């Protein structure tokens, strides 16, 4: 199915808009929904992986997100962009998964980071040496670990704002909280993350 032909375009050479794809999907055109999946599967995987921190849970959340989106697409009212709506589903699915985790690891924000690897901060550079690339990879792993330790209210906002690049308003709309609440959680989340990464920065 994944390799099936792309949706027949209304005007050859011009992409079909999300709105048009959603309308067609609402009319029962499976290939329109498949096109939406192709457009957004990577983005959705990103958010589920970053929120959940491991591939297995991210995969499940990815599947649940699109299945849920397919089942409820007839109720999509075009009040937001399709992606915002999809993003909200992915976030809710991921947060539900997080809540269900029996052995969720949470630590005090004041607890010092135990890992003492001497890891230097470096801005990713396309000309980096293999050693630098290795360091950057390790730093990414440290970041993912630090994110996983954040309380989920902070993690969600930090992931959406700083890793996914959403605006405060988009995060607010997605999570159903006010913009000042987004800003407050963002700052607290960043401060907590800073604490955990301090020795690597």
């Amino acid at each position, binding site marked *: *199915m*994944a390799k099936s032909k792309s949706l027949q375009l209304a005007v050859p050479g011009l992409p079909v808009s999300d709105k048009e794809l959603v309308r067609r999907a609402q*009319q*029962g*055109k*499976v290939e329109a*929904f*498949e096109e939406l*999946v192709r457009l957004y*599967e*990577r*983005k959705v*995987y*990103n958010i589920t*992986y*970053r929120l959940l921190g491991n*591939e297995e849970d*991210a*995969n499940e959340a*990815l*599947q649940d997100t*699109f*299945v849920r989106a*397919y*089942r409820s697409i007839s109720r999509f009212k075009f009040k937001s962009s399709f992606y915002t709506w999809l993003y909200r589903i992915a976030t809710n699915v991921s947060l539900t998964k997080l809540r269900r985790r029996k052995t969720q690891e949470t630590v005090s924000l004041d607890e010092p980071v135990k890992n003492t690897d001497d890891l230097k*901060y470096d*801005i*990713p550079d396309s000309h980096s040496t293999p050693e630098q690339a290795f360091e950057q990879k390790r*730093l*990414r792993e440290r*970041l993912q670990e630090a994110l996983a330790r954040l309380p989920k209210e902070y993690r969600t906002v*930090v992931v959406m704002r*700083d*890793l996914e*690049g959403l605006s405060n308003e988009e995060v607010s709309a997605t999570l159903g909280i006010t913009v000042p609440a987004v*800003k407050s959680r*963002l*700052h607290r989340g*960043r*401060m907590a*993350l*800073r604490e955990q*990464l*301090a020795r690597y*920065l």
Partner: protein
Amino acid sequence: MRKKKTRICDCTELKVWAALYVEGEAPPTIRQLLLLHIQTCRACAQLVHSLQRTVDLCRLQPNCDMPAQAHEKLWGALKKHLKPKK
């Protein structure tokens, strides 16, 4: 007669303003006060510096690669659910 002191922010205020500063939302006067403060307060200078680096680090993260397995599992799951309306 007491000399009028130039206003300088304290460390507690700075923690609040640091949030605005890293967002690029600090008004010029606040920004100036913050920069003055961190010239003389090493702890706050480190705080602002590491907070800025933390944000930069997050923003510079490349997208994760979606494993081929995730793609296959997704389409496998969708196959069971996607049915055209008659």
